[in-house]
């Protein structure tokens, strides 16, 4: 750790991991509810479990991004953070707000929660992923603005690099597009149209800048390859991501009441969205192969390479699978979407946060460059358990989705939704099993932070 103020990222990373565990627990509950509909009813109904599962994901990723920014920006800017105290205060505000929101979801019926939290003033609730009460949304904006102020002031007083510039643009974009969550027109077409400006332009737009910047940072640190080379790749990749991703928003505008031309623009541009992800795979492996140093933190490099590969598979390949309008006509909103969503979020965003944590945590905890070899081995086991089981979750959901499309939509005698759900149960059982393996991997991941043993240099000296 080069700068004292980088330490503020530690609580963010710990909270991110904690929320990650909560997210997976609720995922397991939902997974079981797919096959045992009344499991935990009426205490945790499916819609509530789903809300907690997706909202916890978003919040832990935001925690991770903020932690990553607090760690990365001082080092890139070669100066202390503008205000470490503000960063810590914001952490507690954000954590308490997130916790209260989840408690609200779990203890109060959603409609009552809406009434209690002033949804009548500006109605923003009741929309997928944007279910948060108005006060939580306002809180998110305040925290985001204060966070951006802190980070921007740090960059302004220090060195400006491609990495902290791209990261800053990504984070500002994240905050700006979130403002569309306050716009909730009565017309349901308009509502969906702008809803995607938050959801799509986050994950297939500005978040990719954050992902690119963090990946570039970790690659520079672990490989020692020239900054100039890595930054050039970063620019190429984010330009490609933005060109394809922004107009690619059109792949959400098929048959929802928007003009027909979106079927063309959505199909063409989103068909190209895998390209930047493919470039990212080539770049990550290329850079690691050209490494000028053997960094003792092998786990971080593994996460970095894993991010590139899994983001390409999950976001690129599984996205392409159902992005063309004639295909999407049949697959829209089926388990194919769920398959894509799982692998893309894990591969692109969960893994990049875990990459950053893997790189930064040993330094934040005063262990030097890397954790002990035993700890790293445990962490790498958790990497493989989580990643391989996520591949299986995706494959099982894809199987469920293909069968669902066939029975419910494509066949000459389409069957009713619930009749089809009954027939694809076997896939849900297998998905739940893979989910349990994922959870085992996650538990191992948490444990890896408590595994001691000699560090790399000492281990070699003993041998």
């Amino acid at each position, binding site marked *: 750790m080069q700068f004292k103020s980088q330490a503020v990222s530690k609580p963010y990373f710990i909270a991110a991991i904690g929320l990650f565990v909560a997210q997976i627990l609720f995922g397991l509950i939902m997974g079981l509810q797919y096959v045992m509909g009344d499991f935990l009813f009426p205490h945790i109904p499916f819609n509530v479990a789903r809300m907690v599962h997706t909202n916890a994901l978003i919040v832990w990723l935001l925690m991770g991004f903020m932690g990553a920014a607090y760690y990365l920006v001082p080092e890139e800017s070669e100066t202390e953070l503008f205000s470490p105290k503000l960063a810590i205060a914001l952490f507690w505000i954000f954590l308490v707000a997130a916790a209260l929101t989840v408690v609200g979801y779990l203890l109060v019926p959603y409609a009552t929660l809406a009434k209690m939290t002033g949804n009548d003033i500006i109605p923003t609730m009741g929309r997928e992923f944007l279910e948060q009460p108005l006060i939580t949304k306002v809180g998110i904006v305040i925290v985001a603005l204060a966070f951006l102020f802190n980070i921007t002031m740090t960059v302004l007083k220090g060195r400006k690099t491609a990495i902290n510039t791209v990261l800053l643009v990504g984070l500002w974009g994240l905050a700006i597009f979130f403002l569309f969550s306050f716009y909730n027109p009565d017309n349901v077409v308009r509502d969906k149209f702008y809803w995607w400006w938050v959801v799509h332009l986050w994950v297939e737009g500005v978040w990719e800048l954050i992902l690119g910047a963090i990946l570039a940072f970790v690659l520079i640190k672990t490989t020692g390859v020239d900054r100039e080379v890595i930054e050039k790749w970063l620019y190429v990749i984010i330009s490609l991501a933005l060109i394809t991703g922004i107009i690619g928003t059109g792949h959400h505008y098929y048959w929802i009441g928007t003009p027909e031309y979106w079927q063309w623009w959505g199909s063409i541009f989103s068909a*190209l969205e895998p390209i930047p992800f493919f470039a990212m795979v080539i770049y990550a492996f290329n850079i690691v192969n050209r490494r000028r140093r053997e960094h003792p933190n092998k786990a971080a490099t593994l996460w970095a390479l894993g991010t590139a590969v899994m983001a390409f598979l999950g976001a690129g390949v599984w996205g392409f699978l159902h992005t063309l309008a004639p295909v999407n006509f049949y697959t829209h909103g089926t388990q194919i979407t769920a398959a894509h969503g799982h692998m893309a979020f894990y591969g692109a965003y969960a893994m990049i946060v875990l990459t950053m944590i893997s790189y930064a945590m040993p330094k934040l905890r005063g262990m030097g460059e890397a954790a002990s070899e035993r700890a790293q081995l445990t962490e790498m086991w958790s990497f493989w358990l989580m990643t391989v089981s996520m591949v299986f979750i995706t494959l099982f959901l894809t199987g469920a989705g293909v069968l669902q499309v066939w029975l419910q939509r494509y066949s000459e005698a389409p069957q009713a939704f619930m009749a089809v759900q009954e027939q694809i149960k076997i896939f849900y059982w297998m998905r739940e099993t893979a989910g349990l393996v994922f959870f085992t991997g996650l538990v191992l991941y948490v444990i890896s932070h408590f595994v001691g043993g000699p560090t790399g240099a000492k281990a070699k000296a003993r041998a």
Partner: protein
Amino acid sequence: MTAVAVVDRTPAARLPSPPGDLAIWIFILAELLVFGLLFVAYAFARAGDVALFNHHQQGLDQAAGLINTLLLVTGSYFVARAVAAVRGGSGRVCALWLAAGFGTGVLFVAVKFGEYADKFAAGVSLSTNTFYMFYLGLTFFHLMHVLMGMVILAVVAQKAWRGGYSRVEHAGVETGAAYWHMVDLVWLILFPLLYVMR
């Protein structure tokens, strides 16, 4: 022997590999892929309704299209002269040629806006029909690239004027020129495809 080694580093000896930064060539290939896919989509859509495409194609201003073609080709010539100038070591002359290239871009944009104004006044929109959807979409997407190219030319010209490039080190000029030629090349396919081919 030392003399040979020095000669090997001259720009002429480097010519077989793509001039400019390798990254721009990856970017150019990706851009060509995007446009290529758009052209294929256009071909498919046209094959579905040839009569509609042929009919509405006659509504386009071919003269404006031709003027714009000449402007871009001339612009490419100016930019090529700029590269030659900087290879000869004269940064100021290079900057002037780049400025001339930028000027053809300005005229291109003006002509294009004139065309759009005509079409919009006639009530044409993206939803009019599939032909106009492609006409507006493709030309607008290309126009964005012209504007991007102009920004690049302006930045490079400014640096050239201040003496930022030399006879040996001028990859920036080549990089900008390569991008501008790509914009020109795409238009050379776009123009016959949309305005002329029956």
